[in-house]
């Protein structure tokens, strides 16, 4: 039975009470540091920040509806090798799920990390967010949650949360040691704090917070949100499959791509130190281009645009957790997330695997099952 407690909100508002909680966590939680999204000075950009001094926590706003980068990459940097200290990391569900994949790919370790997960109601794209936040960062966060939790939705003046978030069927953090719950919780009074693991429980005990119960309404609220998002997701799968159904359609889908590789840089699970597309592998002989051009009379340059995306799909669709950072990073608004999530959905289904779900499920390419894909390999006598 998971242990629960409450983070009191009362009149101070969501952001302040959250900051108060983090201060307590740093002071009493037996941790050396906290990684939390903080509002940077001057502009309202929100970035993961590693904090050791409780006094420096006053910019923290993990509820701000934006995550300019997927922080799993940052956690990987912190934990790839021994950290010699314990760090609590405040992450969105998709960030935790990316972290899980990175751990399985040996790019991160769980030993010295406490994961604090938050219910996620979605985030705006980086550019949209800056407009939404305007001058009042904290105020905009409060506004977003009031609207979202009260049923008024997330759209505002022609902008809305990103398609990735709309299609996200995992708004509740899984694999978090501590969970901060908002959905179905009376946030005017308190936030729900729940320990899901022994690690989380130990901390929760240290914090000496008032006890609370998980409300009946929470499950209902979660189910409703997941249902709405799943519907959006399924429609997206259908439309994307149609839009990329053959090589011509796929080429046209990706026609604005300029091979900037931003999507790859933004992708939290694309973990290679150096991508194969920047190594010598694709250094074709100059004469090769001429030969290709000759074959059809004309060839688009660079030649490997579609190949690049297909390669990345082949490499990463088993690990894609659908955070949408690829679309967020695309300078030409190509729906990169849509195609990745769609393909990933089918790839993962084929391997009976769901990325980010569990640390115990081995990544598909690491396991050899003699009997899988009989429709492909069987009857080859």
């Amino acid at each position, binding site marked *: 039975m998971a242990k629960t407690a409450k983070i009191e909100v009362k009149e101070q508002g969501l952001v302040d009470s959250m900051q108060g909680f983090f201060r307590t966590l740093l002071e009493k939680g037996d941790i050396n540091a906290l990684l939390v999204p903080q509002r940077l000075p001057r502009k309202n950009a929100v970035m993961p920040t590693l904090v050791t001094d409780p006094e420096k926590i006053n910019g923290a706003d993990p509820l701000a509806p934006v995550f300019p980068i997927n922080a799993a990459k940052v956690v990987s940097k912190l934990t790839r090798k021994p950290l010699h200290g314990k760090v609590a990391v405040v992450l969105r569900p998709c960030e935790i799920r990316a972290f899980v994949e990175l751990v399985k*790919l040996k790019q991160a370790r769980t030993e010295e990390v406490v994961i604090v997960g938050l219910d996620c109601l979605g985030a705006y794209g980086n550019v949209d967010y800056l407009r939404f936040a305007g001058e009042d960062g904290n105020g905009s966060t409060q506004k977003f949650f009031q609207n979202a939790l009260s049923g008024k939705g997330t759209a505002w003046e022609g902008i809305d949360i990103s398609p990735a978030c709309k299609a996200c069927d995992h708004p509740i953090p899984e694999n978090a040691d501590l969970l901060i719950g908002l959905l179905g919780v009376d946030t005017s009074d308190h936030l729900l704090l729940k320990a899901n693991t022994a690690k989380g429980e130990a901390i929760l005990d240290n914090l000496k917070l008032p006890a609370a119960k998980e409300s009946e309404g929470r499950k209902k609220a979660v189910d409703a949100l997941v249902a709405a998002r799943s519907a959006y997701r399924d429609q997206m799968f259908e439309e994307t499959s149609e839009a990329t159904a053959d090589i011509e359609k796929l080429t046209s889908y990706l026609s604005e791509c300029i091979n900037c590789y931003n999507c790859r840089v933004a992708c939290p699970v694309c973990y290679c*130190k150096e991508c194969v597309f920047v*190594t010598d592998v694709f250094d*074709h002989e100059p004469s090769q281009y001429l030969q290709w051009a000759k*074959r059809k009379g004309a060839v688009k340059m660079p030649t490997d645009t579609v190949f690049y995306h297909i390669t990345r799909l082949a490499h990463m669709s088993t690990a894609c957790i659908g955070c949408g950072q690829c679309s967020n990073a695309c300078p030409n608004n190509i729906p990169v997330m849509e195609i990745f999530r769609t393909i990933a959905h089918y790839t993962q289904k084929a391997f009976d695997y769901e990325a980010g779900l569990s640390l115990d499920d081995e990544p598909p*390419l*690491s396991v*050899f099952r003699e009997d899988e894909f009989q429709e492909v390999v069987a009857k080859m006598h």
Partner: protein
Amino acid sequence: MRKKIGSALVVGAGISGIRSALDLAELGYQVQLIDRAPHLGGTLSQLDYQFPTDHCGMCKMLPLVERDSSSQYCLRKGLFHENIEIMLSTELVALEGEPGKFQATLRQKPAIVDPERCTGCGECSGVCPVEVADEFNAGLTKRKAIYLPVPHNIPNSYTVDLATCTLCGECEKICPTGAIDFRWEARKEFRILVVDDELIVRDSLKDWLTEDGFQVDAAESGPDALEKLTKQSYHLMLLDIKMPDMDGIEVLKRAKEMRPDVAVVMMTAYATVETAVEAMKIGALDYVLKPFDPDTLVPLVLKLYETVERSGEREMEVGAVVLAAGFGSYDPATGNNTYGYGEYPNVVTSIEFERLISGTGPNEGRLLRPSDGKEIGKVAWLQCVGSRDIQANADYCSSVCCMFSIKEALLAKERTDGQVDAAIFYMDMRTFGKNFQRYREKAEKEYNVRFQRSRVHSVEPEGANGNLRISYTDLDGAGREEIVDLVVLAAGQRPPAGTEPLAEMTGVELNSWGFCQLQPFSLSRTAQEGVFVGGSFSGLRDISESVIQANSASLQASSLIHSKGGGLAEATEQSPEFRDVSRELPRTMVALCTCGDTLAQAANFDGVETAVSALDSVTQVHRLERICTQEGWSQLEEALHSSEANRLLIGACLPYVYTKKLRELGKTTGLNPALMEVVDICTPAFPNRNSNPEQVSREIRTTVAMGVGKVKGMEPTPPAAIPVIQEALVVGGGIGGMSAALAIADHGFGVNLVEKEDELGGNLRALHRTLEGAPPQELLEQTVSRVEKHPNIKVYKKSEVLQSLGSAGHFLTTIEREDEGGVTLEHGVAVLATGGKEATTESYGYGQSEAILTQHQLEDKLHGDSVNPAELRVVTMIQCVDSREEPRNYCSRICCGSALKNALYLKDQNPDIDIYVLYRDIMAYGFLENYYTQARQKGIIFIQYSVDDKPRVEVENGQVTVGVTDPILGKEVTIPSDLLVLSTGIVANGQDKLAQIFEVEVDQDGFYQEAEYKWRPVDFLKEGIFTCGIAHSPRSISETIAMAEATAQRALRILTSDRLTAGAIVAEVRHSLCCLCEKCISACPYGARWRDELEEKVMVNELGCQGCGSCAAVCPNSASVLSGYRDQQMFSVIDAALEEMF
């Protein structure tokens, strides 16, 4: 490649023969591998699937170290090894000399089709008018007289079956490459003399034989014949027995005096058959019965002609001989044949079923009934057909049929999605091997295969529609019947044809059933020193045991050659120096074979040449008429010599054939063979592909362009040389460990033998008798004494292994000595032989009475005289105590033998004792069956119990009473017993600890997990570490010794050189790109990769790496690459392949 002094002959090229030959070749000996069949592979060529994976896996026998010496493709298709010469259709006809220096005479059947020229196109078969049953498909399909003996061989050349060939010569005319040559000219020189007093016989014989191309004279009487013989020599005389002036016997005697070389065949009427047989004793080769027709006589003459005239005989000196002649099969049509084999088409043997269900079989893998092609709904397997049958002179168990039938039942289930009803009718289900019991349970519980304990007495047709009715007696004695579509007979084993002459020739002894008799405590030594046995020639064995035994035979052969002074002395061979072309731009010479005129006609060759010339890097294109001939090859060599090309691409047929030739070419031209490649341009032009010239040309262009793409990108690096510490570590001083240590030490290498007790011997110390009679304590004494005196063995008693680092070739292992502290040993290989122990139990009242013992304890007490057989009235034994059910769901294999041994001993000492053995299945496999029969004959009562209704034991005042349900009576029987002996079986003995230290695996029962049960039974996945004996799985003394010899054999592959060459194609890691995700480590099927924590790098063991490329495939950014298959190179190949498509 290493070459050693010494050579060996391996007779039989089935699994065991190939294994032994590869073993000896890997050690560096020159090996002659012969088989009388025209193909390699023995029985296995007919089997597509093998228990327990239900796949093949024969290729796992191929060399893992120094692997470039050998072919690296499907072993069922063929084999090439630098040190092996393979002669097919060849028999051993004489063996003389002495161990270490035998003279062997080999006779090879003539090859009418030249395998060098035959491309396998199949034109010949198309025109052949003959159709006969195809033995490959066990007679279920037809073939021509010119045919492929095995459909999947590479290269696959056609063979003429002279016994059925009509010599019409059509194939010779149509062969596009001129590969067929009946040598009609030579036949004209074969002179035959027909001697008969009847004109009609003389005339018709003369007609028939002249028509077949022979030169025939006739003599009308004995004197006439002798006169002709004085004038001229004849090759063959056909001689009538009954002639007026001088009878045939007399003529024979005189003819042989005059011309000892003349071959004589007697012609006889039925009345004088005995005389004809007598004639054979004084020199006649054969006889024919009159009256005869051309169909019987001509083939006989042809056969004689081939053996007398055309068979090539060859003599050679060999140090040792391994007989791996395999086995024959019982013909169920002989004897009473109550199952109607041969009468009802839907009664087949196991091998026939195997072909029936095979993808290359008559129905392309669909399960159809032979009689009418109807889909099969119900199949019954009948066990022990011609085995365990005293009437059929087979008081032995054929050992493999139980698993074979289960496997076939599973295959049938899988093929039909579980639709087929599969039932196995058996007496005892002998699941005595590792994992067999669980396999049986999988069949029973997951696949619903029915196991029906009963003996079927007859099979009869049910109506006229092909259905069969089987009648059997159930356990309770009631008669029952079932109607099935197909009956499969598990036909037992017999010695192969020709065993007796082979035994006589080689000096080995045969047992009473005609199998080769082995020496005590050995599975490979025979009565004749220097002649060893591998595989089923000494009793049927499954693949795993055949492999072990073949290893053991080759080890013995090597030891013998070594002891005779040949041995592992290195014969130096200069490795060739190649031109350094790394700084040159690629210049490719392309040589295209036109295959006489065939290819030039099938394709637009001018167009091909133009297209190929235009390819990047191609500097010249040659068209050669026939590269496969000596002439064509010289032209190619010449062209390469005079060119400046630094790459060579050959377009011809059968690329596999060229491996050896390219190596030679490298030596003569100085161009590294790694810069040469052969592609197949012949197949596109095969007539049955029905392609037009444009299509053929396009396929050839694409194939050649792909080849050019590949050779262009080749950048050979010299293979790495891996230093080897030429010492071994053996852990465990039981009979297994000691035998392994001795075998390695006898070859001149140092061995460190680590034993945790203060005495050597292990479990053997507790054994006082064996079932077969050989005394185990003598074996123990001799072995311990040899070990302790051996100059190459250092024994560490009271010592245990603490930790081990390193990989094949170089390990560092620390051992802790109880009295003297730690010591670190350097060694190249390790053998883990830590044994097992008798299980203890809490079942059946054990511990409650002194009258309840284990089999071991009984043996001990009988030996120490604390149990006196004379004082015993009733002894009960319970088998399978806590065994063959979860969690110990395996058979301990030795308990039935132990029970039989102790029971027979007790009966022998006191015939009045009543002995009851309560059992589930008596595992009296192989010749142990004979002791089971003896036991029953001596009145020992065997009562079968089931696992749901186990015996019950009551102990009152020390008095033991056993209750058991008798299945025949259907009632409880109570047996007040003076002694209750429990067969508790064998359990693991702390293998997991050592496994962790050496980074190897244990199975779910705690025994060591081998790399592959069938094909690599003594290897671990991690190269350089091996296991034998009970530590791997329960087994007998001789089985343990054989396994120990097998580990020694595997270890010696590594130890015999101070440096091993890695394969040319091995994986490497580009560390600057590697992000240490370790996907490659989990993907590597050979355990050849690991993460070095200190260096923070992923490392590759180049000895272990087999170049499969799995690591390169899972690596997302080509940090893991395979030499010889660089990305850009592969892109070029793919581009070339797609060029013509898009």
